[in-house]
């Protein structure tokens, strides 16, 4: 066995029943927000994961609630048990402030799992004048933070230290190797002196190795304690139990080779400026933010990383906060960040610079980062794409972020639904591809119309008798289609040889070109038609339910339309041209 060195000494901090502590913290916060019933700290609480008790509070444990028990069984044993659903994310998140607190006191913290972390002992022991003094200081700070009942073990290696933290009472009896000390009641410190790790571990059961298959086997072989297991020959253990067994054997023998790998503390990369006095014009705000944006990007690139998403938050004088995450197809430069700030100030699409109230704070924080090496340009550059991006960004700067889009095909029955437009630089919606793969009965067969009206245009359809055509509940057409007229068709004059058309766009601008008195569009004779194809969508939801019938109609000029009959009106969904 290698001689234990002071560098392998580890402090392990254990917060017992961490899931319960974390869940109660959030429950307290929620209760405070409700300003109503606060939760009694002493009440029995259990955290439930998939129908079984995952963790329980000390008071629940006194009522014989144990980990792994079914919820019903636990409630039978302790009727006043309060149950909370287990949330691993909440668990990890709630532990973050504790880690930050420990890091503020002593460097080199390795989080093991929520509720458990290891700290390198040598530095703090020197700084605070001894291991005991160091951890007493730590416990004092944690108690001030509101965490009572924490346990600390110090030993050679993380495994031994963790066991020391977990089982102080088992050692605190008569033949204690070391002292167990209690401060302010529940917290306890357990220090295993240097070189004593193997002796400390020897009486412990093999079950704590945490490998059910191996421990069952060891028990059946008559090896009940770690000491028995550690006494075996290392080479033979490796032969018989393989790599996993050899690792467990090394742990049982008080192995100190696995050091502590501290996490890299997160740097605060947020950059914000306070505007005093608050500014009212967009160009003023962006100009004021220019140096901050450059500083932000310089910070990120100094870490050899690039930002592929940023979060911009803007606070106005009236207290409104606008926050949005912006994606970037490549990575952000300072001017890109400025663009995003400007677009967010403008709101979506409008180029007018009117703000509801003056802006008093602008801040950016990195949304997602990546190593710069993943984004290096190739040897010959990746110029074309970059050029395209710059050009499109210019247009976005002119018209707004949402004005430049790339289409993605999605699912749906209506044509307009199936084309999903994604603003340049944004990520395409994750569900588009999955939604497209679904069957969608009732979608149109190819060929598909080249012109899709969104929203559909009003249309008029008449029977040979000159009446409006309807479709009854069973999908029968009241009369054959004889005449069709689509609003906007008249505005969309076909240019003929003698008269050059000014190329008037056919939607939206029709109103300012011609008086909107075009109530009855010009009717044309129908030469061929087919349908109805009924679409009955989302009938289970009254708000979004749609029931309509589709027709394909060819008029006497040879133009084909896709018409919808919905309720008592006709609409033109698309045109085949």
């Amino acid at each position: 066995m290698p001689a234990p060195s002071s560098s392998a000494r580890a402090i392990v901090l254990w917060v017992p029943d961490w899931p319960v502590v974390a869940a109660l913290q959030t429950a307290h916060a929620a209760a405070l927000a409700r300003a109503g019933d606060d939760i009694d700290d002493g009440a029995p609480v259990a955290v439930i994961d998939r129908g079984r008790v995952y963790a329980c509070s000390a008071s629940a444990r006194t009522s014989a609630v144990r980990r792994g028990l079914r919820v019903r069984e636990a409630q039978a044993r302790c009727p006043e048990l309060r149950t909370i659903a287990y949330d691993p994310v909440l668990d990890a998140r709630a532990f973050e402030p504790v880690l930050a607190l420990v890091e503020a006191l002593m460097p080199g913290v390795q989080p093991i799992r929520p509720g458990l972390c290891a700290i390198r002992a040598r530095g703090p022991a020197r700084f605070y004048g001894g291991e005991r003094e160091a951890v007493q200081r730590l416990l004092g700070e944690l108690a001030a933070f509101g965490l009572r009942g924490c346990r600390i073990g110090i030993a050679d290696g993380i495994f031994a230290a963790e066991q020391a933290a977990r089982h102080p009472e088992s050692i605190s009896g008569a033949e204690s190797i070391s002292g167990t000390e209690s401060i302010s009641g529940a917290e306890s410190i357990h220090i295993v002196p240097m070189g004593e790790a193997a002796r400390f571990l020897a009486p412990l059961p093999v079950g704590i190795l945490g490998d059910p298959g191996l421990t069952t086997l060891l028990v059946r072989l008559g090896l009940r304690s770690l000491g028995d297991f550690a006494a075996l020959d290392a080479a033979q253990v490796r032969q018989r139990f393989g790599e996993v067994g050899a690792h467990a054997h090394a742990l049982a023998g008080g192995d100190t080779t696995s050091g502590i790998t501290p996490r890299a503390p997160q740097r605060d990369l947020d950059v914000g400026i306070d505007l005093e006095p608050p500014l009212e014009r967009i160009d003023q705000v962006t100009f004021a933010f220019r140096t901050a944006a450059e500083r932000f990007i310089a910070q990120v690139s100094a870490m050899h990383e690039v930002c592929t998403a940023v979060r911009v938050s803007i606070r106005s004088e009236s207290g409104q906060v606008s926050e949005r995450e912006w994606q970037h197809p490549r990575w952000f430069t300072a001017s890109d960040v400025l663009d995003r700030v400007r677009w967010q100030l403008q709101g979506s699409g409008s180029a007018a610079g009117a703000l509801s109230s003056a802006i008093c704070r602008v801040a950016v924080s990195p949304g997602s980062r990546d190593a710069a090496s993943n984004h290096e340009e190739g040897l010959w550059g990746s110029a074309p794409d970059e050029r395209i991006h710059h050009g499109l960004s210019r247009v976005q700067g002119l018209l707004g972020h949402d004005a430049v889009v790339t289409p993605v095909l999605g699912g749906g029955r209506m044509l307009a639904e199936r084309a999903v437009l994604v603003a340049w630089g944004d990520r395409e919606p994750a569900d588009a591809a999955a939604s497209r793969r679904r069957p969608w009965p009732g979608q149109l067969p190819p060929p598909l119309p080249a012109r899709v009206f969104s929203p559909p245009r009003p249309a008029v359809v008449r029977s040979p008798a000159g009446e409006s055509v309807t479709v009854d509940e069973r999908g029968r057409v009241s009369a054959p289609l004889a005449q069709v007229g689509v609003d906007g068709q008249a505005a969309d004059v076909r240019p003929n040889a003698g008269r050059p058309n000014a190329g008037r766009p056919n939607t939206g601008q029709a109103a300012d070109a011609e008086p909107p008195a075009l109530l009855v569009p010009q009717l044309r004779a129908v030469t061929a038609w087919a349908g109805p194809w009924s679409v009955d969508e989302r009938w289970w939801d009254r708000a979004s339910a749609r029931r309509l019938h589709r027709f394909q109609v060819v008029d006497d000029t040879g133009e084909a339309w896709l018409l919808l009959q919905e309720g008592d009106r006709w609409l033109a969904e698309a045109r085949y041209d």
Partner: protein
Amino acid sequence: MNTVSVAIDIVEHMFEYEGMTGSERVQALQARITQMQRRTLDERALPTLPPLAELLPGGAMRAGSAYSVIESHALVMAMLAGPSEAGSWCGVVGVPDFGVEAAAGFGIDLQRLVLVPNPGDQWLTVTAALVDVLPVVVTQPRGRVNEADAARLAARLRQRGATLIAVGPWPQSEARLSVETGSWSGIGAGFGRLRQRSVTVTVASGADTGRRRRGRLWLPGGNAGLEAAPRLVAVDRPEGALPWDASGSTDEPLLRTVV
């Protein structure tokens, strides 16, 4: 090297014109000559779908030119399909009702398609900005385009080697394409569905007085894309009424498929 290979090409092609009438042969040879003349200039031909390429002056869409397409989005998509399939980026400005799914059916790669549906009054600025970076740009002019703007944009097109396709009339366009008559097949009075459309595409090249070429195409064809239609020639009307000729219009020429 180029002139030699082209000359051999010409000689080889001479023999293909055996079965044609005199005027047809002259026309075909003239087309070859113009094609050769184009090649001597330093202009790049864009990959174009073959049925369309036959109709266009120079035998292909050319980089640095403007084309005007009247009244048919499907024809615009057919023009975009060639360059897009070959990996070019395409931009579409001011066409809010561009049928994206139909575009995909024509073979346009949507990942390299950029739309600016509503540029408003700034459509010309946006078009110019896109011409700088994208090889093929479709634009729908808003209002009448004045000659000076068109000339400025044409200079930019030549400089960047980009191609502009205007939806509507465009001054100084290389060619003006329009769909004349279309007839849908697969649909009847209350039955069937739209399957394909045969159209006559007219290409007027040069100035307004330029030559016109006509071609019959399936737009869209059976596979939702562009296909060449079988050639039709006028034949003499046989004696007596035809069984399918219910319309009774005797002044239209009777067409027959040439294989």
